[in-house]
C-alpha cells in the first residue's frame, strides 16, 4: 500500500516538468556560474596554511631536569630505580620534544611558522593579530611533569594556549596538535603509575605530525567541487516544499479524502510522504552529483562515504517533507511551504555555507550552520572530498538522522486526527 502511494507521488513529481527543471536545472546552472566566477578564489591551489605561532617558555628546561634528578637521588628509592630513571630522564625533555620534534619538524614547517618569544614580549604577541596562536609554557612545567610521571607526586603541568579567533584554521591546527600532545603525556603518566613502563616518555612526535599533516594537507577543494556540494544540499531542500505542496493539493482537491475512504490509514499516507521525500531527495542528490561529475569533473575519493551522507541528507529531506505536509494539513493552508521554500531555505543555505565558506568567519555561524541539515551534510561532504573516511563525519551523519527523527515526531503530533481533516 505504501508503495502505491510512493509510486504515485513519484509519478506526479515526474509529470511536473517545470518543477523538475527548476529543482534539477537550477543547481547545475549555479554550479557552473559560481564555480567559474569564483574559481580564482579556490581553484586547484592546495590550501596554504601558514600559521604563525609564538612560543613562550618560562624557565629553562635543562635546569628543571637537573633539579628533578637531584631530587630523586635524595629520595628513598631503591638504587636501581634511581639509575633507571636518571638514565632515561636525560632524554626526557617534553618541551624540547614539542618545540623541535613536533612543531619544528620538517613536515610541519610549511604549515606552522614557529617563533620563540621571550616572556617579556608576551603582551605584544597577544595583541598582534598575525599570530594564529600563542603557546605558553608555565614555570616548572617540565619539573612538575617529570615528578608526576615518575614519582606519582603532584599534578603534571598544563600548557597554556591563546587562540586567535580571527584565524580559525591555524589556531585549530595548533590546538589539535597540543591536545594530542597532552593526551600522550597523560598516557605516559598513567602508564608510569601502573608500573607498566616507566623507562621512557610516551610521546610519539611522528604520530602527531602524521595526523596533522593528513588532516590539513588533504586534497584541496576546488570552487567547482565546493559549489557542487553547496548547490546540491541547498536545492534538495526544495524537494521538501514541493512534496508538501503536492500533498496539500491532494487535500485541497479531496483526493486525500478518497484515499481515506479506501480505508487506508492516514499513517500509511504519512509514511508514504516521508518515503517519497527520502527517495526523491536521494535521486536528486545523485543526479546533481552525477551531472557534476560528468560535466564539471567533480569526483569523490570515497564514493561510499558520499553515499552514506547522501542517504542521511535524503532522510532529513523526508522528515522535512512530512513535517511541512502535516503543518499544511493542520493549518489548511499552503503558506508554510512557500515560507519554507523562500525564506527558510535561503537562510539555511547561507548559514550552511552554500554560497561561500561562511563558517570561516565565526565560530558561532559555523556551529549554527552545522545545525542545519544542509550545513551538516555540506561539512560531511567536503570532509569526504578532502579524503576523510566515514568515521570522520559520523557526527554529521548522526545529526542528520536525529534531525529527521525529531521532525517526524513533531509531524506525527501535528498531523490532524481522524475526522478532523476538513
Amino acid at each position, binding site marked *: 500500500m505504501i508503495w502505491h502511494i510512493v509510486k*504515485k507521488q513519484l509519478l506526479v513529481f515526474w509529470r511536473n516538468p517545470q518543477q523538475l527543471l527548476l529543482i534539477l536545472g537550477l543547481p547545475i546552472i549555479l554550479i557552473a556560474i559560481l564555480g567559474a566566477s569564483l574559481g580564482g578564489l579556490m581553484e586547484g591551489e592546495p590550501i596554504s596554511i601558514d600559521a604563525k605561532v609564538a612560543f613562550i617558555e618560562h624557565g629553562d628546561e635543562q635546569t628543571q631536569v637537573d633539579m628533578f634528578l637531584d631530587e630523586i637521588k635524595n629520595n628513598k628509592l631503591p638504587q636501581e630505580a634511581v639509575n633507571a630513571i636518571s638514565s632515561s630522564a636525560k632524554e626526557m625533555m617534553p618541551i624540547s620534544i614539542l618545540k623541535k620534534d613536533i612543531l619544528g619538524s620538517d613536515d610541519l614547517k610549511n604549515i606552522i611558522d614557529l617563533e620563540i618569544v621571550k616572556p617579556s614580549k608576551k603582551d605584544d604577541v597577544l595583541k598582534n593579530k598575525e599570530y594564529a596562536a600563542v603557546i605558553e609554557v608555565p614555570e616548572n612545567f617540565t619539573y612538575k611533569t617529570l615528578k608526576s610521571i615518575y614519582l606519582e607526586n603532584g599534578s603534571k603541568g598544563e600548557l597554556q594556549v591563546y587562540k586567535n579567533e580571527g584565524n580559525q584554521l591555524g589556531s585549530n591546527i595548533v590546538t589539535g596538535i597540543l591536545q594530542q600532545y597532552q593526551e600522550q603525556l597523560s598516557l605516559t603518566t598513567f602508564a608510569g603509575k601502573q608500573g607498566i613502563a616507566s623507562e621512557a616518555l610516551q610521546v610519539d612526535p611522528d604520530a602527531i605530525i602524521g595526523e596533522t599533516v593528513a588532516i590539513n594537507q588533504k586534497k584541496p577543494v576546488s570552487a567547482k567541487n565546493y559549489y557542487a556540494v553547496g548547490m546540491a544540499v541547498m536545492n534538495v531542500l526544495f524537494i521538501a516544499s514541493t512534496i508538501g505542496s503536492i500533498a496539500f493539493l491532494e487535500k485541497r*482537491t*479531496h483526493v486525500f479524502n478518497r484515499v481515506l475512504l*479506501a480505508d487506508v490509514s492516514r499513517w500509511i499516507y504519512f509514511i508514504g510522504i516521508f518515503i517519497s521525500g527520502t527517495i526523491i531527495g536521494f535521486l536528486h542528490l545523485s543526479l546533481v552529483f552525477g551531472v557534476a561529475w560528468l560535466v564539471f569533473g567533480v569526483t569523490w575519493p570515497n564514493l561510499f562515504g558520499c553515499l552514506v551522507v547522501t542517504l542521511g541528507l535524503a532522510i532529513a529531506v523526508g522528515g522535512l517533507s512530512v513535517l511541512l505536509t502535516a503543518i499544511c494539513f493542520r493549518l489548511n493552508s499552503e503558506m508554510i511551504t512557500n515560507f519554507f521554500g523562500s525564506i527558510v531555505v535561503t537562510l539555511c543555505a547561507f548559514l550552511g555555507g552554500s554560497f561561500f565558506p561562511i563558517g570561516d568567519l565565526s565560530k558561532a555561524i559555523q556551529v549554527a550552520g552545522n545545525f542545519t541539515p544542509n550545513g551538516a551534510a555540506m561539512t560531511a561532504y567536503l570532509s569526504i572530498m578532502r579524503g576523510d573516511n566515514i568515521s570522520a563525519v559520523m557526527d554529521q551523519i548522526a545529526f542528520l538522522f536525529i534531525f529527521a527523527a525529531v521532525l517526524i515526531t513533531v509531524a506525527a503530533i501535528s498531523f490532524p486526527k481522524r475526522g478532523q481533516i476538513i
Partner: protein
Amino acid sequence: MLELVNLSKKFKHLYAVKNLNMFIEKGEIVGLLGPNGAGKSTAITMLSSLVEPTTGDVRFKNKSILKSPGPIRRVIGMVPQEIALYNDLSAEENLQFFGRIYRLKGNDLKQKIDEILELIGLADRRKDIVKKFSGGMKRRLNIGVALLHNPELIIMDEPTVGIDPQSRNYILETVKRLNEEKQMTVIYTSHYMEEVEFLCDRIYIMDQGNLIASGTKEEIKRILSAEKTIIVKADRLNNTFIDSLKQNPTINRVTVENKTVTIIVPKEINIFQTVLKLAEEAKLELNSVDIKTPTLEDVFLHLTGRALRD
C-alpha cells in the same frame, strides 16, 4: 442500512447541519435536495465518516461509524462535489491508483478499469492526462473512480454539475441501471429537481442546515395538494398588476421572475377570471396563463418562500 441520528455540525457559530435525522434502506435511491449552503455536502462528509459530527450519530448496519469507520469505508463509493482526481495523471493512471488503494490488483483491476472506462465513455481517451479533459469528462471520471470497488452504497454529491444534457441523461440512466442491476444503494444530492424526481424513491429536503421535508415523491407533492400553482406570462409586466395580485386576499403567494409570475392559491379558488380582470385593469397584455401540477420545485418554494436556484 444507514441511519443518521440527530446529526449536527457546527462551524464556529454556524450550524451547517442541525439535528438531521435520515435513514436509507438497502436498494433505495434517496435524494437529498436543497439550495446552495443547505448543508448537503456537510451531511454527506459526516455520513461517509470523513468528518466527525459535532453531535449525533451515524449508524451503518446498526453500528456506530464514529468509533470504527472501517466497515462503511470499505463499501461506499463517494463521488465528491469537487473533481477529486490527479490532474497530472492519465484517466487510466487515476483508475489504477485508486484501484490499488482499494486493494484491487492484476487482472481483476485491469478488467474493472476497462469496464469503467467503457461505462463512462472514456475508453478512447484512457491515456490522456486529466488536465486536458473537458469539464464533463472530468465529471464522468470522477464518478468512475467511485465505482471501482463495486460499492454497496454510492454517494453522489451533485455529480452532473456542468455536464451537457446528453451526458447528464446518460449518467442518470447509468445510476438507475446500477441500482436496478446491482442493487446498489444510492444517495443522490442535487439542486436539479428533474434529476431527483426522475431517480429517487424518497427525498429529503434541506434548507439552511435543517430538514424541512421528507418522504416519497408523492408524499412530498401532497404537501401542495391543498394549493395550486398558476403561471402567468407577459412581456411587459407592470407593478400595478403585481401589486394588485399581492393585495388579493385569496392569493397565498406571488413570486416574480423575469416575465413570469407564479401565483399560489388554495385549490378550491377559481383564480383564472380574477387574473384576467386584474390584467385588464392594469392594461397588461398577457401571453399565457397556465395551471400547473405541483413539482418539487414548487414544494421548495412553498416551504421556504425561495426558489431553489436563485
